[in-house]
Structure formats: structure tokens, C-alpha cells
């Protein structure tokens, strides 16, 4: 693999850019791999990357039924934050955020991490108390956040209306090193690094069955034939229940559609990410100038990547109240992704009832921000067969033991 650098750009500029090589190879599947990762989204590719980088396991295939990064990795609002209430969540999300800081250097691929700052608005007395509690928890967890007053919010976000009649802005939970990154580049960067370590990334290859012998996984059947494996990592977000069904167990997961949409591009007007969870919308401005907007999840099971229109209307309406300047903006595109929701809104990184099958799922509406931390923790789980400190609390057994990591309340969001 040729490294990307300023000199490479200069060199290619002198020869009509004819020398760029493919970022990753597209091989046919081998007969057997030590580890097969199902799902070439951010989480799957990050799992493979840290398996190679940290644990030295490179006889790995990442198989994907569609195209690389074409699921939720390419369908989110690219927000990165780690201001969670519960200790296990703060640990894994902060690990992810910290890895994002130098991910571009690590992967030699510009993921455009932009720690522009992130505000979660407090718009009711209850929300203010909840977020102050999160700030205190974050300070104990080593996650840098602070509470700021309404005037400081206005200084940071001049386009915001802090005097709304029904939901005035009373302050905000501020994470200065939160922000955004280029979502596709995260998948592409990991894919390139994995391919460079000799791993096979096999796209257009759908898993149709999981073969087991004596309670242990021995391989998978795919649309490109049968492939044997020593270990199997299922990292497929919305389709986790479908894969679990193939392996013969059920998960505490329900799949639903979550939508996002962008406006027409406008001049730079907001250089932080703003989340307004009481009125339920969040917005940031992309580097292209589009206002990137997200809202609530549908309440019913759905695999179609199409969401309900009324969420678009409700969220946009709420954001127009919060940001009157956007009221005349045209919306450009809208899309949906299938999120895998757990009851406590925390992820699952776990062993399963079948030997050597591991699952990484349940990230729900917070998948993108956690990609590096999730991959790091999952790689340790797959390599050692037992969870490390980051994944330990996120096992499937927490449901049986009533040991929930309750983030549905902490997020203050009704999804």
C-alpha cells in the first residue's frame, strides 16, 4: 500500500493522477479463515482492524451482503460525543472518541474528525437537573464536559433562539471535544488498513446460514459459497436478529427505522453540534454547508430503511422553533437506516449460546460515534474469547441478571 501524503499528492499531480492504486482489494473468499466478521460497516471493519493491529490476527475475512459502509455507517448524522451518564457507557464511548482524535494518522486516511464542540440543550428544569448530574458523573469518569448558561449558548450558536416561549434554552451540557467526522471515510479508512494487513474484504456476499457442530461454529454459508471459520463475529446492526436466528438463538433486540435529512447547502452559520432532546431534534452543519438533521426513531419493527413522515415533520418543526433562521430552507435529501434497539438502550458485546460466535450489536441510535471503541473492545473479546474491561458490562447476561446500563433516561431522548 502506498502511503497517502502531501508528497503523494504532488507526485500524482505531475502525472495526471494515474498512479493512485485501489484503496482495498476485492478478493474471492478463501476456504477458511481464523475469524470471519459479518458486516463491513464501521463496527465490523474496526473489529477486524484492531484484531490485526492489537492482537496480531490477520487471517480474517470481513463479509458484507451489500457494499462497504452502505448500511448505518453511511446513514447517520456523524455526531461524536461521549457525555454518557453510566460508567460503562462513558468508558467505551470515551475510548471511541479518544481513538477518533488521531484516527486519521493511525489509518493514514483523512476521516475529517472535527472536534467542533457539542451542546445538549437543557430546555426544562428536569432536563437541566439531568444534564448537571451527567456533568458531575462525566467529571468523575474523566470525560471532559461542563454546564454552560444560556448566554454562553447564544455566544457559541448565534443563530439559536434562547427565548422560545414554550421551551426556552436554560443552558447546555457542553462537550468541547465532541464533534463530527466524515462517516464514509471512517469505513473506507478502516477497510484500506485491513486490506493492507492481508485481510479479505468480500462485498456482495450475503450470509445465508451458519454451520455449527457440537455447539461450536464451524463456518458460514454465503451467496459466494461455503466458508469455514474458527470464530465468527456478527456485527450487523439492524439485521442482528436475522443472523442470530440462523445461529439458533434470540436477542433482546428490535429493529426500527431512524431517519436523517439535510437541507440545501448554505454559508457557514453554525460551527458546533446542537442537540435539543426535549423538542427532539439535532442539527449540525456539514463541510458542504448542508444543515444535517436527525430526530426520533419509529416505534414499530421495520427493516425497510424507510421511516415515517411525521417524524420528519415533527423534528423539523421543533428545530424551526429553536433556529428560526432555517424556516425558509429547502430540504434536499432524506434517508433512513435500521437501528437495533435494546431495552436499556445500551449495546451488546458478548459471547453467545453458540461457542465461538460473538455478537456486537444493539448500538441503536448511537452507533457511529462508538465505531473505534466498539471495534477495539470487540477485537479483544473475539481474540481472547472473554471480554476485556471495556466490554465486560455489555454482555447478554446483563438482561438475565437485571444489571441494565440504563441510557434511555440518560440520553433524555424518547428513542
Amino acid at each position, binding site marked *: 500500500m502506498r502511503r497517502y501524503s502531501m508528497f503523494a499528492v504532488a507526485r500524482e499531480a505531475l502525472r495526471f493522477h494515474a498512479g493512485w492504486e485501489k484503496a482495498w482489494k476485492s478478493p474471492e473468499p478463501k476456504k477458511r479463515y481464523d475469524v470471519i466478521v459479518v458486516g463491513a460497516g464501521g463496527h465490523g471493519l474496526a473489529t477486524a482492524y484492531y484484531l490485526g493491529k492489537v492482537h496480531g490476527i490477520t487471517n480474517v475475512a470481513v463479509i458484507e451482503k451489500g457494499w462497504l459502509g452502505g448500511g448505518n455507517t453511511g446513514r447517520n448524522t456523524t455526531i461524536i460525543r461521549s457525555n454518557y451518564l453510566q460508567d460503562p457507557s462513558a468508558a467505551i464511548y470515551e475510548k471511541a472518541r479518544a481513538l477518533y482524535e488521531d484516527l486519521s494518522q493511525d489509518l493514514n486516511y483523512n476521516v475529517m474528525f472535527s472536534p467542533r464542540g457539542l451542546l445538549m440543550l437543557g430546555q426544562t428544569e428536569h432536563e437541566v437537573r439531568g444534564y448537571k448530574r451527567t456533568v458531575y458523573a462525566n467529571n468523575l469518569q474523566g470525560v471532559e464536559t461542563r454546564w454552560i448558561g444560556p448566554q454562553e449558548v447564544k455566544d457559541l450558536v448565534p443563530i439559536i433562539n434562547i427565548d422560545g416561549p414554550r421551551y426556552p434554552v436554560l443552558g447546555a451540557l457542553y462537550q468541547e471535544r465532541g464533534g463530527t467526522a466524515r462517516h464514509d471515510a471512517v469505513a473506507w479508512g478502516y477497510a484500506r488498513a485491513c486490506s493492507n494487513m492481508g485481510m479479505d474484504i468480500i462485498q456482495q456476499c450475503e450470509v445465508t446460514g451458519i454451520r455449527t457442530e457440537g455447539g461450536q461454529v464451524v463456518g458460514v454459508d454465503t451467496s459466494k459459497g461455503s466458508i469455514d471459520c474458527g470464530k465468527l463475529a456478527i456485527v450487523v446492526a439492524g439485521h442482528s436478529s436475522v443472523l442470530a436466528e440462523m445461529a439458533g438463538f434470540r*436477542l433482546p433486540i*428490535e*429493529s426500527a427505522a431512524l431517519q436523517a435529512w439535510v437541507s440545501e447547502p448554505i454559508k457557514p452559520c453554525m460551527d458546533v453540534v446542537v442537540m435539543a432532546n426535549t423538542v427532539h431534534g439535532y442539527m449540525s452543519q456539514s463541510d458542504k454547508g448542508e444543515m444535517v438533521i436527525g430526530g426520533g426513531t419509529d416505534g*414499530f419493527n421495520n427493516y425497510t430503511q*424507510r421511516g*415515517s413522515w*411525521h417524524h420528519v415533520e415533527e423534528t423539523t418543526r421543533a428545530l424551526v422553533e429553536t433556529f428560526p433562521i432555517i424556516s425558509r430552507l429547502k430540504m434536499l435529501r432524506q434517508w433512513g437506516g435500521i437501528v437495533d434497539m435494546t431495552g436499556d438502550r445500551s449495546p451488546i458485546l458478548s459471547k453467545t449460546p453458540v461457542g465461538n460466535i460473538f455478537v456486537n450489536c444493539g448500538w441503536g441510535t448511537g452507533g457511529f460515534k462508538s465505531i473505534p471503541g466498539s471495534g477495539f473492545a470487540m477485537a479483544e473479546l473475539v481474540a481472547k474469547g472473554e471480554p476485556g474491561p471495556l466490554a465486560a458490562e455489555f454482555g447478554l447476561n446483563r*438482561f438475565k441478571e437485571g444489571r441494565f446500563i440504563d441510557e434511555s433516561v440518560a440520553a433524555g431522548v424518547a428513542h
Partner: protein
Amino acid sequence: MLTLTCPYCGVTAEETELAPGGEAHLKRFGPGSSDEEFESYMFARKNPKGVHFERWRHANGCGKWFLAARCTATLEVFGTYSAQTKEPPADIIAAIKAKRPGWEGYK
């Protein structure tokens, strides 16, 4: 937009008039059951990609709970029926089989 006909009041309601209630026909386990049974009742869900039986409430209408058979892969609705049933009635099963000949049946 998803529309369902309430089997009680007969109104064809769109989604904003309804509240979703998750998987239908769960077998309840309470005191005296094993940990596995209780966990599976509380948390494990079929979450199928295809035919799904689910609970809905006509929240901004007559207020009654009812059940629906719907396809999660296409959003097609096969029918709605009374909540006072232990498993899907024959006409609903027939409606699903007519549209999904390969369907394995209710289990």
C-alpha cells in the same frame, strides 16, 4: 404512512393516531418460572424480517389495544384483529399465506 383499521371501532387510522406496543402473543412468565423463561419473556424478541404479529393501541381514538399482522420487510399490512386472542385467527393466517406462500406459519 402506515394505516391500520381498528377492529373495535372500525376506524382506519394513520400512524399518528396509533401507539405501537411491540410483539404480540408473548407467553407470560411470572413468579415460579425459571430465570431463562422470565428473561426470554421479558427481553428476547423474534424481531423477524418478514411476517410480524404486534400490538397496537388506538391511542388517539377509541383507546383500545388490538393486534396486527404486518410484514417488516415491505410494510404490507395483512390484517388487524382482536387482542382477546391467544394466537392469530384463521382468516389472518389465510390472508398471510395467500400473499406469502413460502411463509413457515405462526410459531
